[in-house]
C-alpha cells in the first residue's frame, strides 16, 4: 500500500494500531506522531484517520454532526455488528436513550454504593493477603471488584459471575487476532441477556429488585413507548462490556505503576488524601480507553488534512492525554498533578456514562489496597502496563 504517497503525507504511520501488543511501546509512538504528524492514516481495521492532538479530539467530540458515532465507535467491533446503545447512536435518538440511566450514575447515586464498594474491596484485599507473598492482583482484585460491584448494580445474578471474565477476554481482547472468537462469545452474551430479560419479564415487576439497571431499562420509555427487546439487548450488551472491563484495567494499571514506583507508593501510603488526584493522573497516562472511532458524516478538515465523508476517524485519547501543548512534562506520571483536564472518559455527548462510578471504584480499590497490603513490587517485568491480564506482585518484599 502506498497510501501515504497517494495522500501526500510526509510523516505517516500506515500501520498505526492501538490494540494488544501495539500498546507496549505506544507512548513513544504518540510522541513521534504528536511531534511529526498529528493527523495521519492507518491501513489497519479497514483504514482510518488518526487524530492525536488534544484540541482536535475535543473539537471533534463537540461536533457530532460531522464526527458521527454510527455505525460504531468501537473499532474493530465488540463481537457484534448491532449498534450499541447509547454509544453508537447519533442525535437525535441518542439523548433519549442516554437519559434513561443518567440518574443512576450521578455522583450522589454512586456515593450511595460507597459502603458496599468498600466492603467488597476489603474482602478482596484480605484474599490477596491470604494468597501468600506472590500474588496475581489482577485476578484477585482488579477484575473481581468491578465484576461484583457492577453486577450488583446492574442486576446480574451472582451464580453467573464466574463466566463473565471469559466473555470479556474473548470479546474485547481476542477481537483483533481472532474476530470469530469474539463474535462467538458475542452470541453467547446476547443469548445470556435474552434469557435474563425473559426471566425478569416473567417474574413481573413485583419480583424485580427495586432499582437495578435492568429494572430501569425495562421500565423506561422512549418517546412514549417501551424499549424493544432488540434495544434492551443492545443496551445490556454495552453496559456489560463497559462496566466490567475498563474499571478492571484502571485498577490494574494503577497498581502496576505503584508496584514499579516505590516512592509514589510510599507517598500515597503516607498521604491517602492524594489518592483521588493520583487516580486522575493514572487515568490520563494509562487509560483503559486509548482511542474511540467516529465516521465523518461530511467532508471536513482536521489540522489541514482533508477527510472525506464516510471515512473512519479514530480519536486517540491516549495521545491527546500526553500532548505537550496541554500538559507540562506529559510523559511524567506526577501523582500530585493538579491541572489535569484529560480525555480518559471522552467528552461531548458521549462522555462515559459510568465515569463517576469508575473513578469511585478506582479510588476505593487503591485506598483499601494500600491500607491492607504492605510494600509491594512487580514480580514479573514482562507483564505489560495495559490490559487485564495477570499482574503478579511480590508482597512484603
Amino acid at each position, binding site marked *: 500500500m502506498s497510501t501515504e504517497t497517494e495522500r501526500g503525507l510526509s510523516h505517516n504511520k500506515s500501520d498505526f494500531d492501538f490494540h494488544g501488543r501495539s500498546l507496549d511501546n505506544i507512548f513513544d509512538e504518540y510522541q513521534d506522531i504528536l511531534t511529526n504528524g498529528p493527523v495521519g492514516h492507518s491501513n489497519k481495521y479497514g483504514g482510518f484517520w488518526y487524530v492525536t492532538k488534544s484540541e482536535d479530539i475535543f473539537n471533534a467530540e463537540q461536533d457530532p454532526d460531522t464526527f458521527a458515532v454510527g455505525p460504531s465507535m468501537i473499532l474493530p467491533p465488540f463481537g457484534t455488528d448491532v449498534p450499541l446503545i447509547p454509544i453508537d447512536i447519533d442525535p437525535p435518538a441518542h439523548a433519549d436513550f442516554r437519559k434513561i440511566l443518567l440518574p443512576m450514575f450521578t*455522583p450522589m447515586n454512586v456515593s450511595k454504593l460507597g459502603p458496599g464498594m468498600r466492603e467488597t474491596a476489603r474482602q478482596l484485599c484480605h484474599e490477596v493477603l491470604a494468597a501468600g507473598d506472590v500474588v496475581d492482583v489482577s485476578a484477585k482484585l482488579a477484575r473481581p471488584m468491578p465484576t461484583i460491584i457492577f453486577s450488583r448494580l446492574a442486576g446480574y445474578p451472582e451464580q453467573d459471575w464466574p463466566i463473565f471474565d471469559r466473555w470479556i477476554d474473548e470479546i474485547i481482547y481476542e477481537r483483533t487476532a481472532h474476530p470469530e472468537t469474539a463474535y462467538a462469545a458475542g452470541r453467547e452474551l446476547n443469548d445470556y441477556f435474552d434469557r435474563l430479560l425473559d426471566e425478569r419479564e416473567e417474574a413481573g415487576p413485583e419480583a424485580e429488585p427495586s432499582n437495578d439497571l435492568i429494572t430501569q431499562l425495562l421500565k423506561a420509555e422512549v418517546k412514549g413507548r417501551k424499549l424493544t427487546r432488540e434495544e434492551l439487548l443492545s443496551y445490556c450488551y454495552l453496559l456489560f462490556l463497559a462496566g466490567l472491563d475498563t474499571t478492571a484495567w484502571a485498577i490494574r494499571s494503577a497498581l502496576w505503576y505503584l508496584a514499579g514506583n516505590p516512592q509514589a507508593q510510599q507517598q500515597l501510603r503516607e498521604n491517602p488524601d492524594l489518592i483521588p488526584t493520583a487516580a486522575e493522573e493514572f487515568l490520563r497516562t494509562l487509560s483503559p480507553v486509548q482511542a474511540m472511532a467516529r465516521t465523518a458524516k461530511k467532508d471536513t478538515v482536521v489540522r489541514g488534512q482533508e477527510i472525506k465523508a464516510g471515512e473512519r476517524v479514530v480519536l486517540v485519547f491516549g495521545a491527546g492525554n500526553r500532548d505537550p501543548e496541554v500538559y507540562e512534562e506529559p510523559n511524567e506520571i506526577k501523582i500530585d498533578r493538579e491541572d489535569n483536564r484529560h480525555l480518559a472518559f471522552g467528552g461531548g455527548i458521549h*462522555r462515559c456514562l459510568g465515569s463517576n462510578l469508575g473513578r469511585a471504584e478506582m479510588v476505593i480499590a487503591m485506598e483499601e489496597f494500600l491500607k491492607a497490603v504492605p510494600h509491594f513490587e512487580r514480580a514479573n517485568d514482562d507483564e505489560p502496563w495495559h490490559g487485564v491480564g495477570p499482574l503478579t506482585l511480590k508482597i512484603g518484599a
Partner: protein
Amino acid sequence: MGELWVDGGRCQGHARCWALAPETFEIDEEGYAHVIPGRENSGDEPNVRKAIRNCPERAILERETNDAGEKASEVSAS
C-alpha cells in the same frame, strides 16, 4: 470579576467541578452541574479556579458585567 455560571449546553456531567469545589457547584438529578445560588461571585477562589481548569468540557464560564451591572458579553473563563 464576572458572574460564574455553567453552560448547560456544554456540561456533560463529568462532575469534576463538584469534586474540586463542592462549595460552589452542585449536581442535579441527571448529573449536570450548576453554580449554587449565591455562589456566582466565587470565581476567584482557588478551588473554583482549579475546577475551571479541570472541566473537560470547558463549560464553566464567567459572564462579564458592564458598569451598570447588566449582563454583557459572555467570555470563557478557561
